[in-house]
C-alpha cells in the first residue's frame, strides 16, 4: 500500500514536472499573427491548413535561423506552423518519431530537413498517403529510397554544397594568387554535407594550390582548434585552411591567433553565421561562403503555401549561396539573417501570381 502510494506520488511529481516544463517552454505551435484575435491567415484564401516542419536540430544557429525563416514567412500570411527538431544531429530515430507523431495530425504540408537520406522515408510514406505535401529542404531525401517507397516529394530546396565548396575554392584562388599548400578540415568523416563541400573545394581549386591534408574534426570547434594547431606545426609553410563549417572555422582562427598568424594564413569556411561574418569584418576569417538557412526555411514555407494553394512546384530549387569577404561583410551583417543580395525565388513568383 505504502509502495503504491509512493509510486503514485512519484508519478504525479513526474507529471507536475513535465507540465511545468511544457508551460515554461515556448509553445511549439505558433499562430503566426501576434495580435491573436485575427486568427488563421485570411489573406491566402482562408483554407490554409497548418504546416509542420521537422528540422535537424536547434542546438546550432544554422537551424535556428532556418526556423526563424520558416516562422517569419508563415507570419506574413498567417499560416499556423509547428517547428520540431531532432535532439541532435545524431538523433535519426528521434527525428523519425517526431514525423510519425505529426503525420497523424491535421497538417496540410510538411517541411522536412532529414538528418540522413533515409531516416524519414518510412514515416513520410504515411504523410504522402494522406495526400499531404512534402517539401524537402536543406538535406535531400535519398532519391532511390523515396522511389522504392513510392514517396512523392513536392519539391527540394537546398544549397548545393558542392557549389559552396567550389565558391570557396575560387575565393581561395583569389586570395592565394601565387598558389600554396592548404589543409582541409571537415566535419564527421563520411558525413554527406562535409563530403560535398570538401569535394567542391577540391574540384574548384587551380593547379597551383595543393591540398596537403584532410582532417575530420567532427563539427567541434575545440577539435578543429587542436587539429589546426597540429597541422601548422607539421607544416609551417601552410598558406590556407578550408573548413567545412563556420563553427570549426572560428576554431581554426583561434589556433592562428594562438601562434600569432591571424590573417597571414587564409581561412575560408562555409555557413555564413553571424559570428563568422563578424570575424570576416575583423579580418581574422578570410571569407565565409554564406548559405542562407533563413532563405531555405522561408522558401520551404512558401513552397508549402503554394502547394496547398494548388500550384505546381518546380522539382528542384537551389537556395542562394554567396561568398562573404571583407568587401561585403558590412552589408551581409546588416541584412542578417536575410540574404543581402537578390536571389531567385520561384515560389515567391507562384504566390505572387495568385
Amino acid at each position, binding site marked *: 500500500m505504502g509502495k503504491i502510494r509512493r509510486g503514485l506520488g512519484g508519478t504525479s511529481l513526474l507529471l507536475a514536472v513535465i507540465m511545468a516544463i511544457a508551460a515554461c517552454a515556448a509553445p511549439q505551435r505558433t499562430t503566426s499573427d501576434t495580435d491573436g484575435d485575427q486568427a488563421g491567415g485570411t489573406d491566402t484564401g482562408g483554407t490554409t491548413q497548418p504546416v509542420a516542419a521537422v528540422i535537424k536540430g536547434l542546438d546550432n544557429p544554422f537551424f535556428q535561423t532556418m526556423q526563424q525563416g520558416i516562422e517569419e514567412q508563415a507570419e506574413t500570411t498567417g499560416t499556423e506552423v509547428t517547428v520540431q527538431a531532432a535532439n541532435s544531429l545524431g538523433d535519426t530515430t528521434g527525428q523519425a518519431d517526431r514525423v510519425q507523431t505529426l503525420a497523424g495530425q491535421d497538417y496540410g504540408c510538411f517541411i522536412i530537413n532529414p538528418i540522413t537520406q533515409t531516416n524519414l522515408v518510412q514515416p513520410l510514406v504515411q504523410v504522402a498517403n494522406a495526400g499531404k505535401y512534402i517539401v524537402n529542404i536543406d538535406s535531400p531525401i535519398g532519391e532511390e529510397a523515396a522511389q522504392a517507397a513510392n514517396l512523392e516529394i513536392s519539391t527540394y530546396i537546398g544549397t548545393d554544397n558542392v557549389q559552396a565548396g567550389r565558391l570557396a575554392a575560387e575565393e581561395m584562388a583569389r586570395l592565394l594568387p601565387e598558389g600554396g599548400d592548404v589543409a582541409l578540415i571537415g566535419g564527421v568523416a563520411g558525413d554527406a554535407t562535409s563530403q560535398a563541400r570538401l569535394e567542391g573545394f577540391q574540384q574548384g581549386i587551380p593547379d597551383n594550390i595543393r591540398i596537403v591534408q*584532410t582532417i*575530420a574534426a567532427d563539427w567541434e570547434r575545440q*577539435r578543429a582548434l587542436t*587539429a589546426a594547431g597540429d597541422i601548422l606545426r607539421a607544416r609551417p609553410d601552410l598558406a590556407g585552411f578550408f573548413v567545412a563549417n563556420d563553427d570549426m572555422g572560428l576554431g581554426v582562427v583561434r589556433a592562428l591567433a594562438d601562434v600569432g598568424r591571424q590573417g597571414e594564413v587564409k581561412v575560408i569556411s562555409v555557413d555564413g553565421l553571424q559570428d563568422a561574418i563578424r570575424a570576416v569584418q575583423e579580418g581574422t576569417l578570410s571569407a565565409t561562403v554564406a548559405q542562407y538557412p533563413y532563405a531555405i526555411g522561408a522558401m520551404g514555407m512558401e513552397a508549402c503555401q503554394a502547394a496547398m494553394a494548388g500550384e505546381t512546384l518546380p522539382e528542384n530549387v537551389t537556395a542562394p549561396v554567396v561568398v562573404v569577404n571583407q568587401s561585403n561583410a558590412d552589408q551581409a551583417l546588416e541584412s542578417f539573417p536575410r540574404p543581402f543580395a537578390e536571389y531567385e525565388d520561384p515560389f515567391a513568383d507562384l504566390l505572387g501570381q495568385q
Partner: protein
Amino acid sequence: MTQATTSPSWERLRDPSFWADWTAAVALVLLIIGFSIASPVFLTLGNIQALLLAAAILVVLTIGQTYVILTGGIDLSVASILTLGSVVLGQAYSRGWGIGVACLLAIVTGTLVGLINGLVIAKGKITDFIVTLGSLSAASGAALVLSNGRPVQIADPFLLRLATGRLGPIGYFVILAAIVAIIAHFVLFHSRFGTHLLATGGDTEAARAMGINTDRIKITAYIISGCLAGIAGVLLTARVGAAEPASNTSFLLNSVAAVVLGGVSLFGGRGTVIGPVVGALLLTALVNGLTLLAVSQFYQPLAVGIVVVLAALLMRYQQ
C-alpha cells in the same frame, strides 16, 4: 615479527597487476617512440606544449570520471556538465556579471549537477547509468534553454590569458591540470576519504560493515566529478573563446576510454589517478601524431579504436 614491512620494487615489477596498472604508460612510450621516428615535429617543444595544452581539458574531466568509476559507478553526464558550465559562464558573462563570478557560477553549476547525480544514485537507489544518462540529457537541454541555442563569443582578457599564457615553457592550462591531478592523487592515497572511496568501490558491503557511510562517499565522488566538469567547462570556454551549447560527446567517450586505459577497474575499488591521466595523454597524443602525419580522416577513428581495444586486451591478459 612475522611480516616484512618493506615492499621491494622488484617484487612489484614481477607482479602482473603492476603492469596492468601501467598499460597506458607503456603504450604512451611506444607511441612517442613511433611518432617521433615518423615525424620530426612530434618531439619538438612546441608540439609537446600544444599536446599537453590540448590534453588539459580531457585530463581534468578524466580525473572526475576516475573518482566516480573508482566507486564502481559511471558518470555519463561529464561532457554535458562541461557544456552546461560553459554556457552558464557565457550567459553570466554576457549579462555583465564579471568573469570571476561567471567562472565561479560555471563551477558551482557543475558541482550542483554532480550533487544531484550523487543524491539520486545513493539515496534514490537508482542505477548510476540511468541517472547520469538522464542528467546527460537534462544538462545539455538546460544548456540549450539557457543559451537559446546560440553560442556566445567571449573575448575576455582573463580567459585569453588562461588559455594562452605560460609560466616558463608550461601553459597555465597544463599547470592547472597538473595541480588537479596531484591533489586528486593525494586525496586518493593519502586521505581517509580516498581509502574509503576505494573500499566503497571495491566492496560496498564490506565498507558499510566497517561503518563507512558509503552513500556519502558516492555522493562526494559525483560532486567531485561535477565540479571538475565545471572547471573543464571554464577551460573549454577559454580555449575556444566561445560558450557553445553544442554537445561535446567526444569528451564523454574519451574520458571513459582514458580511465579504462589508465588501468582503473570498471567495477570500482582499484586504480590510480596517474593511470587515467596518462590515458588521456595517450588519446591526445594519438590524434596529435596522426594529424602531424597527415593520416587520412577515415583512418583516424579506426586507429584510435584499435589502440583502445589493444590496450584493454593487453591489460586483460596481464591480469
